[in-house]
């Protein structure tokens, strides 16, 4: 089976996010990027299928900056090919545009199963897996937490709803899935192996095709939520903080005798 995993670099949310002077976008000159964690799960799911049933795994990313090391890491983990789509993506790209670009790029890459991360924290216009499914006229399922082959031409997938209820669906291949979580924690690639990949492996590059995408929405302001209901911050040394918290709990009758 040929599996394609899409990879996107997203701002690391643990860092402070700075907004640009216009107040409409992140200040991309200072932002620290990392692979979207759901893509790590998508790759893990692909590698599990490869290990258990045999597959060729290709990772594809748009060249939105700082993506090389991530792609080498995917190779070190066990992906067979890494493709970088070259184009003007540094300033960010809408999900509708990314879907249109990837739909064309996939014309030249064998794909029976396409796995994307379920969502990215910086996206505002929907799920790539779904939009890619639309563009390629393939079936799609989002919020997937498990994929197993079901004969040669289909997969059985688990889709999570609220309350922990799970739907089991059979999906004909080729298909696009938005992966929420792989059945196991994404594997780790030792730094030495990534370094070795950087020396020995090659990233394939493709020029981005020109695409036409309908008008999307235009951001007029990007800002922190208003501080209205913000928490009262308790300061002090750990013992002082503990004493204050203890008093708050006692006050509310939350401490059982």
């Amino acid at each position, binding site marked *: 089976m040929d599996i394609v995993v899409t990879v996107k670099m997203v*701002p690391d949310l643990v860092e402070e996010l700075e*907004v640009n002077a216009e107040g409409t976008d992140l200040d991309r000159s200072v932002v620290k990027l990392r692979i979207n964690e759901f893509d790590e799960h998508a790759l893990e799911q692909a590698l599990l299928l490869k290990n258990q049933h045999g597959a060729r795994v290709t990772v594809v990313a748009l060249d939105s900056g700082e993506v090389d090391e991530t792609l080498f890491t995917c190779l070190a983990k066990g992906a067979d090919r890494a493709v970088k789509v070259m184009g003007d993506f540094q300033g960010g790209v809408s999900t509708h545009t990314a879907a249109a670009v990837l739909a064309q790029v996939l014309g030249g890459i064998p794909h029976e199963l396409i796995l994307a991360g379920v969502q990215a924290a910086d996206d505002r216009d929907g799920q790539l897996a779904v939009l890619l499914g639309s563009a390629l006229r393939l*079936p799609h399922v989002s919020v997937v937490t498990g994929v197993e082959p079901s004969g040669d031409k289909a997969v059985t997938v688990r889709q999570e709803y*609220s309350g922990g209820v799970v739907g089991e669906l059979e999906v004909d291949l080729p298909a696009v899935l938005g992966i929420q979580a792989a059945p*196991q924690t994404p594997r780790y690639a030792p730094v030495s192996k990534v370094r070795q990949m950087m020396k020995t492996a090659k990233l394939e590059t493709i020029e981005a095709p020109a695409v036409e995408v309908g008008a999307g929405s235009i951001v007029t302001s990007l*800002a922190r939520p208003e501080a209205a209901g913000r*928490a009262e*911050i308790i300061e002090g040394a750990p013992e002082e903080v503990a004493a204050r918290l203890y008093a*708050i709990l006692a006050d509310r009758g*939350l401490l059982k005798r």
Partner: protein
Amino acid sequence: MSADIAVVVEHLEGVLAEVSFEMLAKGRELAAAGGGMLWAVLIGHGVTRLAGELGAADGVAVVEQEALAHYTPEAYEKAAAAALQALAPRVALVASSSMGLDQAAGLSGTLGWPLCAYCKDVALTDGALTAVSQIYGGKLLATAEVPGEHAICAMLPGAAAAAAGRKSGTPPVREIPPPALDGLRVRFKRLIQPEGGDVDITREGILVSVGRGIGSQDNIAVVKELAEALGGAVSSSRPIVDQGWLPKTRQVGKSGLSVKPKLYLAVGISGAPEHIEGMRGAELIVAINTDPGAPIFDVAHYGVVSDLFDVIPALTEKVKSRA
């Protein structure tokens, strides 16, 4: 250009989701602002009886078909697209839920209407549509102008108050002829109910909830000790469960459980929208996080910006000594 508003209501196993009523409340506002009708779009098999709970709408557009007996992204998207094509609303509201992630983007792809996802708010002013999306894990809000005659907005659960959208009485029903649903490539097999766990976190009065900030499985003992001292239980965010450190029955949030304890102590949890969805109803929320910009502080009543490994042991000590 139509000024009607359509709300694609969500239901699972014959029960309407809370977010459906929230969207009807928001839809009512939008319909009033534009002077249009509010439509509820109801898709399924044997679901027309649910129209009796959709009294907040002016009309219910029903797509009924045997192939729609169970949710699948493909069949439901085709049905919703048929309904939206027939209604041609100014704005269609879809839930930003698991099913909604499929549906909102799918409809945008099929109909070619622009999509605003993760909406906290949507407004129509003199016919112009603006949407506020909560992105970057809840750290930032993006306000956007949405062009065109139609648009899809995916509404985050909790963005509007459900009460205003909950009205009994059956509005006029309009039957939408179902689209062709043969040769479907996504087939429903079964629903799997969550397994019962050793504790039911929805019944606990005190939850000490742990997130990725805990660092390792072994460290969970630190919060467990506090939970025991307080006579409560340990719950968690999703990554802790995905990592296999705690069972699924302890997960709070969108794809976990919704809890309303007397005390919710969020430890090393950033407060992503998907987490907040499951705990915002707690009576008292206390958050401990090293990142002063963590969105959890926007919903917490009290916050401590520091290392959990400093604060939690000190608090445990204090509680144990009952000083």
